[in-house]
């Protein structure tokens, strides 16, 4: 494998770079969403201070690609997600930004009943090459309206691919692949990861959707962790390593399609599985992974499968309660100890 040059970027910069590369390569790639240019049309704000979205991820793109391809929309998710679905069906390759995933309810018809079903209902003659980028996750004291994960809502639906990167490199590589994909992709960016720095390959290096990544190798237990929980799991793994327990941390990266083969292979080696998911537990990705392993990997198991998830509540606003809501390294380590 050829060595690829890397340099350090934040997760937010990696997302931005993937969009920039795609927009340079393909004039059909456009951006639309609330404040993604942000202030670019306001007389008293100069362009280079444009917001670039609520969290600044698309900053600078309007300057390079202009307001014709970077569209600020009204605060009407149903309208601009619907417009994005239509644009995708008619030949563009749009990237829409849903500011917080918690707002999906407003535009669910456009996503679920239109975008997700287009290709199927037109027998493959229509496509929906649309990426909806959205933010997930608790930890910013942003209260219940802005702090959920909710990707399990979308993994439930056929016709939607779901991606949840945990590192800057994965964010860039997976977003490049998502933009090129001919299906509707929901791209879940964790708010608390935007400032995370890491080595990111230069250039157009995409990562295929549907491939998991082993973030830490170990023989004693498999910890499957999603998005930011990968880092909680790695921290737990370090605690456990001090006790002589070597955990393998598997990051699915894509939630739909899910690389169950990699998870099963790891469990076949370690015989034990803990799944960490910040999403609410019922009908969750965590429980789906547990079900797949109980079904296809039953004879590999030496212990019950444990899920460490958020509780079945909205995200609390109270900072101590919010911290208690998020699966912690201590909880993960305790779950591992309980099955060893």
């Amino acid at each position, binding site marked *: 494998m050829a060595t690829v040059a890397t340099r350090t970027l934040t997760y937010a910069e990696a997302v931005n770079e993937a969009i920039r590369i795609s927009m340079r390569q393909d004039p059909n790639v456009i951006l639309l969403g609330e404040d993604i240019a942000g202030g670019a049309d306001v007389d008293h704000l100069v362009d280079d201070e444009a917001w670039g979205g609520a969290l600044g991820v698309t900053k600078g793109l309007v300057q390079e690609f202009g307001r014709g391809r970077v569209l600020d929309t009204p605060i009407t998710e149903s309208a601009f997600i619907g417009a994005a679905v239509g644009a995708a069906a008619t030949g563009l390759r749009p990237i829409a930004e849903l500011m917080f995933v918690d707002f999906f309810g407003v535009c669910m018809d456009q996503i679920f009943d239109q975008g997700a079903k287009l290709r199927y209902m037109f027998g493959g003659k229509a496509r929906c090459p649309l990426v909806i980028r959205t933010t997930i996750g608790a930890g910013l004291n942003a209260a219940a309206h802005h702090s959920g994960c909710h990707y399990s809502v979308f993994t439930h639906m056929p016709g939607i691919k779901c991606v949840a990167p945990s590192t800057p490199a994965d964010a860039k590589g997976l977003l490049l692949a998502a933009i090129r994909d001919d299906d509707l992709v929901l791209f879940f960016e964790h708010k608390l990861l935007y400032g995370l720095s890491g080595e990111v390959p230069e250039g157009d290096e995409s990562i295929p959707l549907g491939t998991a990544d082993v973030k830490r190798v170990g023989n*004693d237990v498999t910890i499957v962790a999603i998005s930011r929980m990968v880092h909680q799991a790695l921290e737990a793994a370090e605690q456990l*390593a*001090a*006790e*002589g*327990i*070597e955990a393998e941390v598997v990051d699915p990266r894509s939630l739909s399609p899910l690389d169950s083969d990699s998870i099963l292979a790891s469990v076949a080696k370690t*015989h034990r599985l803990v799944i960490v998911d910040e999403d609410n537990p019922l009908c969750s990705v965590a429980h789906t992974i547990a079900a797949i392993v109980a079904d296809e990997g*039953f*004879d*590999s*198991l*030496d*212990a019950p499968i444990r899920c460490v998830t958020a509780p079945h509540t909205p995200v609390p606003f109270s900072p101590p309660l919010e911290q208690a809501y998020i699966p912690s390294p201590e909880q993960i380590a305790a779950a591992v100890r*309980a*099955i*060893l």
Partner: protein
Amino acid sequence: MPVLVKMPKWGLMMKTGTVTGWLLAEGDAVAAGQPLFVVETDKAVDDVEAPAAGVLRRIVAAPGTVVAVRGAVGVISIDGETLSEDAVDAFVLAHTAALMPAVTATGSVVRPVRAPRAADHDAEGRVTASPAARKRARELGLDLAAVTATGPGGRITSEDVERAASDDRTAEAREDWLPIDHDLRLYALSAGSPRDPAVVFVHGIGGSSASWQAVVGPLADRHHVIAIDLPGHGRSDIPDPAHADYSVDGLARAVTTAIAQLGRERVTLVGHSLGGAVAISAALAAPSIVTRLVLVDSVGLGDDISTDLLTLLEAAPSESASRALLELFFHDQRLVLAAGVAEHHAALARPGAHAAIRAIADRAFAGTGQQAVAGCRLADITQPVLVVWGARDRVVPVAHAERARASIAGAEVAIIPDAGHAPQVEAPAAFADVLMRFLAGTGS
């Protein structure tokens, strides 16, 4: 990388040895194979040769030290390497540590493992075991009831099953006295896992299970090896010849009963000399039990037998008679050692032992030849047969091997050069090689 000098394992029952002296001092140059130190066990005293050439860098076990089999005795540095004291310490420690679970050679922390306990059971008595443990136990044919648990709540894990299987496989050799009749218990030495194919060894007249000593170990890795002492021999009982059946067929019945007592339903039967005739008899009488037959310098394939042997069996037990017998057996006379002569004589000197052996000889060899010839019945043998012979056998002529090939359909014949009547003793490596090829190449 230095070479560790370890305590040897002489025989299946040896667990420790005492280092009684060193023949070289620390710092002396040493050649591979050069006698290096002296070990005493409850059965023998002998020199142990250096495993490699170099310099005797460290004497770990000073004279008088009792060391477990395979334990560290010394360190030889090789290729002119210079080792600090710390490096030698670390090397010895690494080896010692490798023998103890829960500490790695690198000294890193190892996952704590719960002490094994009896497995839990549910309300219906079903043992608590993980899916992986159940699957592995099925694959290994292991009963979960025999496995202790280290999982939380007394759950058996796949590691527990592997551990139980491995314990089973590397279990120390065991000794049994199997009840055959009201006045007869047969001694059986067994090694290896009872889940592996069984190979049963039967010695010749005046011999014992000890004659298989050198081949049992190598075989036990993949076979359940059982060496039996015939009635009146070794450590088995000596029933009164006035009542007991010392015929070849009677001995064969005792052997098949012993096999049943050990719970084995199908075995490969290996017989040496008179034990070969016993094995043929058992194979003909119980073909469902004896599924393969190995005949080693066997009686029962022709009429000829050394009259010297018959004379010596007749003579009153004495050290000189035992010596003459062993001289007759071995091609390499250097193998006739004082210890072997003494052991042979001691066995015959047991009260009743000589009478029992004469009773067997009377029935098997009518004064000048073999009575127990299965000759006409050899064609009835349907099992795969291997015939092994020492090329220099002076007790039973090697020509009988060819007769066996002609009489028994499909019999394989292996002649071991430069070996006398007991190739399993004179050329154990060649013998084990031939036997293992046969065991691997034919179905059980």
